[in-house]
């Protein structure tokens, strides 16, 4: 059985890049991309453990996450387009309608 450590480190890095991107970048498109990064980091993790344990449950779950990610991106992009049409911007720091 190959060690999953390498894959786990890669997954950790990817996830960290994703979460930093989400927290730091202001462009909604970049944020969406970073979310994708995070999801795929999780996928990598799942597959690594699946391979390590010799079961297929993790692989199946990864497939499910990919389908979910596709749906999420579709909705997210639609929201961004709608936002742009309304506000003429995709910068999330300029949108603070929920400010109390």
């Amino acid at each position, binding site marked *: 059985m190959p060690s999953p450590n390498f894959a786990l480190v890669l997954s950790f890095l990817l996830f960290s890049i994703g*979460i930093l991107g*989400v*927290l*730091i970048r*202001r462009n909604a498109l970049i944020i969406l991309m970073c979310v994708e990064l995070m999801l795929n980091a999780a996928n990598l993790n799942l597959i690594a453990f699946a391979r390590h344990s010799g079961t297929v449950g993790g692989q199946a779950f990864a497939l499910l996450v990919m389908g979910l990610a596709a749906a999420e991106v579709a909705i997210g992009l639609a929201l961004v387009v709608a936002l742009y049409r309304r506000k003429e911007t995709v910068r*999330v*720091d300029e*949108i*603070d*309608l*929920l*400010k*109390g």
Partner: protein
Amino acid sequence: MIHGPLHGSLLWLIAFLPVFGALINGATGRRARNTKLVDALALGSVGIAFALSLFYFIVLMRQPSEGRVIIQELWTWVDFGGAHVLDGLTHNTVSWAYRFDPLSGAMALLVTGVGFLIHLFSTGYMAEEREDGRYYRFMAYLNLFVFSMLNLVLGANLLMMFLGWEGVGLCSYLLIGFYFEKDFAATAGKKAFITNRIGDFGFLVGFFLLFQIYGSADFSTLMGMTREVLARPEITLFGLSHAPTWWFNLAGCCLFVGACGKSAQIPLYVWLPDAMAGPTPVSALIHAATMVTSGLYMIARLNFVYVNAPVALSVVLFVGALTALVAASMGLAQYDIKKVLAYSTVSQLGFMFMGMGAGAFTAGMFHVFTHAFFKAALFLGSGSVILACHHEQDMRNLGGLKDKLPWTFRSMLVATLAIAGIFPFSGFFSKDEILWKVFDGWYRHGELGGSQLALLAWIMGMVAAFMTAFYMTRLMIMTFWGEYRGHGHDPHGLRALALPDEHGHHESHHHEPHEVPWNMWVPVAILGGLALVAGFLNIPHSLHWIGSSRFSEWLSPLLFQVGAPEAHEAVPAMEYVLMVWATLVWAPGAMLLAWWIYGMDPSWSKARAFVARFPNLFRWVHNKYFVDEFYEASVIQPTLRVGEGLWVVDGKVVDGAVNGAAWLSLFWGRVSFWFDSKIVDGLVNLIAWLIEQLSWAFRRLQSGRVHQYAFVMFLGFLVFALWKFLV
């Protein structure tokens, strides 16, 4: 053999045919292009009703006298449930039922027969209205009247009679006010209706009393139970105990008030002369031949009440005699041809009531019939005259129409002789029979021990009969003899001052009056013929060698027998004396007097001299003793003033109370508003303010920045993960 009531399956049609005509004509007549259709419906329905009446009358004649009744119950009209009457609780229903018996059958024949002739006459008389689009309305009203009258006479109980009683009043109102755009017609209609309402109230009270006494409204039950009711020692109603006769007297008087209204007796007669504002066929149909006889019919129908109510009978006798006399005297000084006939009608109705009051119900009813014929003939004849002379009703502007309207003249002459009571015209048989019965009330077969009232009534009746012959002759002479005084031709200065020109074409037409079309003079001639021969239906017993008193025998099963039926006694010589006196001296004397005053002297100088000598007498009679003015001052004005007073009360007190209540509500509303806006809203705002103050910390959290939210979420996730990892 038992003779139960015969079944009359088509009986209802007699009454309902005219109402079908009325409904169809009333609903569609306005749009009917051709008024001939309206004619066909109106005449057809009444004509078939007449044929049906005739059929049932013949059926009735073929029965033995005790079986002569046909009853048809259509449906239960009113179900009183359990009603408290004398014997405790009984179940009472009043049906929509028709009863065809000798009395109602004869009346139905009269109503439909004379009604048909008058419908026919109307097709000619109302021809001018054909273009105006209201002809259908007239015909529909006439049909509705016939329906109501048939309900009145054919109704098998008092409620049905009352239905007809009200219906004829309504139709009379509608027809008098037919030219409602004219003020006097509308007023006359109202007067007739209101006066009748007063009488109707009396009728209702009498009806309720009878219902309380008998516990039934059905005529058969009423008549059958009378002996049983009379046998009671006393009857207690409304906490009062009196002998049955006392209650009969009360009910009889109340019902007679109704009869006074409908049949135009003193003091409620005032509407009838004014009712001449309606078209002349209406005057003939309603106000001479049929409706005004309903009071008489009611008394004849309820004879079992009246023969047991001596006081009520005396009231009927006296009021009848007084009306006959007073109305006849009013007729002496009228110039309007229809007014003369109107007062004559009132007076003749008085004669009929005299007959009823004397207990001679058949004589009274017989006069109803003969009067219907000759008075309808006179009215329709006067209608022909009026139409031929372009709506001229003032006799001073008529005259000399004898040759111009020969058929009308002949018919009216016969009718005049009949009303004057000349042998052998019908009036002689009916009127002299009444007068003899009244006289007999005092004379009592040779013993002068009867009531003094009967003698007084007889004297009044004789004077009234003299006046009747006089004013009718005066009317005939003024209208038909002498020279025609129309279109300005007036050698003796008799013309009345020019009246306001109502129709706009009096003077523009300078053509001679001429005979009216056939559909007008034929009915008059038929009625005149009937006036000539109808008397032979009821020859008094004293003249039994001429014929028998068929009419009396015909009605006798319906009369309540007080004692054992009297055998025909020897005829007192006095009856012959009076008869000869009346027909040879009294009536001809009056006619000759009228001829001497108005006929022999075309300038009427004797009449004018009389007026000049007694101006006040003439003024009083000509103005009908100022009775209308008296009513105006004593009843109408006070009523109006009371109304005005009530109006003031309404304006000040009732409206004041309402306005006060409104003001109070407004004030209370203001107080509520203040309380709501200051106290309630204040509390709410206070709470809102408090919450706002408390919420500042939470507001800081909600920055609206997505990154912050994401960061917090990430931190939360991290904490969760660490907690999971460490614990």
